[in-house]
């Protein structure tokens, strides 16, 4: 076998990456993933004997048509963004926090209990208090998984999912027992597990009159900006990213790897916990309500937030846009159901496809970077590219979060 044969057969000798190709794999990669998912969604709508154009039109106008729709979308985006920021922080440390659901629940329970216990505090004290307590509630729940990950090397994906199951059952117990609205008449409300009406002082104030848009939006955007600065403008954020890229390299350079993993999880959980508070104190009912199912209270936001973070390139600032788009998808999905009768589960299906495409395309992006690198090296010295490109490929494939 000659050297030429190796190079022809090697994936590193694929066609020269053009500017167009680079554009395709960087800026266009995520929009194209979303487009592909929506196209498959359209095929599913067709399979149901409905018209995808009518459906997607209803979805778009329900999500973005008019100020009320725009505000509803923003409101829906708030918990998604908060969870997404949490996911960004954890994943940058190479820890997959799949426990958003459970952390939302514990944050909401802790803050609701606080508001029920201290209803007479003035709003300017009570609102910050419930947000902080919610953050603590989420942080503790995530911290359990973070502790097990850092000090016992327990797979965090599994432990966070188990903790989700525990949190939901604890919520069902508390809301249908100790925290239930004792005043409610069983005949009127049936057996809906819910708390009594929360003190008015704890309601998140509306910031645009005539819409549901409340202080939660401000909190979420502030958390996203803070998350960005934390990750890219502080030494702590640098440590998180260093540990995420290579645990060994970070350890060799003297960074406290275990503590960093633990802290990233705790912060991640705190963001998810705040999402729980927003879901309670920014809700229309101003109570904590569930239906007993796994997603009855959270509306699956703990998982949706993962999709948002991935689509936002694991960057808190891009996650703002991403959260708004996915908020629109969820709000619009309800309108679409009303018009063409296709259940909102279609939106969940599309979200799953987005994750699949985004994750799949990642390798192509890495490979394209290798090819460019190989070519750059090839210009310097003949014969270097294949091996140099390969070792770099291996490093990148291993290092990427």
């Amino acid at each position: 076998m000659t050297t030429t044969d190796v190079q022809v057969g090697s994936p590193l000798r694929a066609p020269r990456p053009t500017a167009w190709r680079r554009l395709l794999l960087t800026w266009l990669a995520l929009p194209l993933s979303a487009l592909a998912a929506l196209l498959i969604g359209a095929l599913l709508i067709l399979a149901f004997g409905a018209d995808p154009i009518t459906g997607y039109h209803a979805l778009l106008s329900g999500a973005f048509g008019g100020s009320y729709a725009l505000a509803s979308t923003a409101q829906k985006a708030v918990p998604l963004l908060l969870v997404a920021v949490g996911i960004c922080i954890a994943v940058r440390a190479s820890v997959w926090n799949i426990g958003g659901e459970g952390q939302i629940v514990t944050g909401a329970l802790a803050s609701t209990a606080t508001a029920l216990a201290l209803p007479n505090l003035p709003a300017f004290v009570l609102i910050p208090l419930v947000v902080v307590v919610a953050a603590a509630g989420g942080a503790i729940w995530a911290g359990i998984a973070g502790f097990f990950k850092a000090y016992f090397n327990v797979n965090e994906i599994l432990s966070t999912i188990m903790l989700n199951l525990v949190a939901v059952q604890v919520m069902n117990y508390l809301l249908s027992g100790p925290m239930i609205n004792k005043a409610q008449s069983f005949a009127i409300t049936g057996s809906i597990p819910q708390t009594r009406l929360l003190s008015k002082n704890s309601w998140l104030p509306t910031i645009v009159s005539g819409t549901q848009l409340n202080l939660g939006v401000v909190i979420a955007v502030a958390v996203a900006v803070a998350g960005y600065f934390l990750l890219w403008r502080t030494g702590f954020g640098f440590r998180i990213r260093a540990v995420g890229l290579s645990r060994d390299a970070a350890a060799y350079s003297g960074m406290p790897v275990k503590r960093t993993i633990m802290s990233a999880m705790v912060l991640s959980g705190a963001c998810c916990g705040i999402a729980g508070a927003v879901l309670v104190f920014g809700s229309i009912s101003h109570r904590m309500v569930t239906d007993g199912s796994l997603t009855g209270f959270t509306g699956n936001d703990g998982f949706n937030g993962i999709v948002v973070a991935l689509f936002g390139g694991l960057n808190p600032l891009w996650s703002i846009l991403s959260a708004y788009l996915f908020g629109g998808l969820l709000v619009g999905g309800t309108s679409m159901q009303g018009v063409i009768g296709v259940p909102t589960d279609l939106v969940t299906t599309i979200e799953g496809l987005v994750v699949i495409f985004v994750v799949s395309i990642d390798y192509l992006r890495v490979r394209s970077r290798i090819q460019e690198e190989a070519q750059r090296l090839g210009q310097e010295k003949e014969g270097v590219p294949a091996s140099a490109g390969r070792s770099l490929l291996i490093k990148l494939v291993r290092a990427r979060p």
Partner: protein
Amino acid sequence: MSAFFTYAILTATIASAIQYATPFLLAALGETLGQRSGVLNLGVDGIMLMGAFSCYYVALQTGSDLLGILVGIGVGAVLGLITAFMSVTLRAQQGISGIGVYIFGLGLSDLLFVRFVGTPLPVNPLPAVNIPLLSKIPAVGRMFFQQNLLIYLAFVLVPALAFVLYHTNFGTKVLAVGENPAAADSVGISVTRTRYVTVVLGCTMAGLAGATLLLLDGIFQENLTQSAGFIAVALVYFGAWRPAGVMTGSLLYGVVTAVVLQWKSLGIIPTSAADLAATAPAVITVLALVALAGRFKQPAALGKPYVRGA
């Protein structure tokens, strides 16, 4: 409490524990096969949901449970091909690509259910098959030998998988690819082909697990599995990647679930605390993961995509 310790209730509890354990066992055995070759598949729950729905739909339309099971297996295989393509060919990050498959399966199974079935009608659960002679043994017969065929199949697969892994050529290849893919590659074992086979077979078993779960009660509902697929993945860790260990874990899980339900119906656990008692299996799983972490070595290449030239 004394009501629990009667002959009839104890044997019934053990019999149902084995039924609860079976879907976990099937899914976890499939996951064991995949993980032994180095692929972490977290989409099991989504695949179980799709397997359960397709089995339900076909059984409802045709009246044949067997046809439903076969279609459930087929759907598992198709999703397995997609999973393998992502994690082997495209070298996607395995943790999160599996979450994508899970969300996809969760959405699509309920979408299809709402659209094509709507009002849930039960299909016939699989009939129990009494094993001649053995089912006549007092207590033991009632507990172990009056179950349906899928349950027997699941427990037969435990020694079968152990045999395949430890005593066949194919099994040796799987273990080699999972421990050191570069070395396996250098002696001519195709890492890609081996992993495709294990992942597709594993997902087939996840599809079968979904069908089994469905046929216990004969009715589908949104999120029927209630994260059973994730628990199955945890059971693989619990069982230290060994078929017998995975079976032990599944049985333990089945026993805890059955006892909690039985105590609830007997009133030993007050209704108000039933939700708290239902956390027991998940809590036990987390504690077991912590207790067993580091005791057993996981397949060295688990979760790492293979790039030739390392």
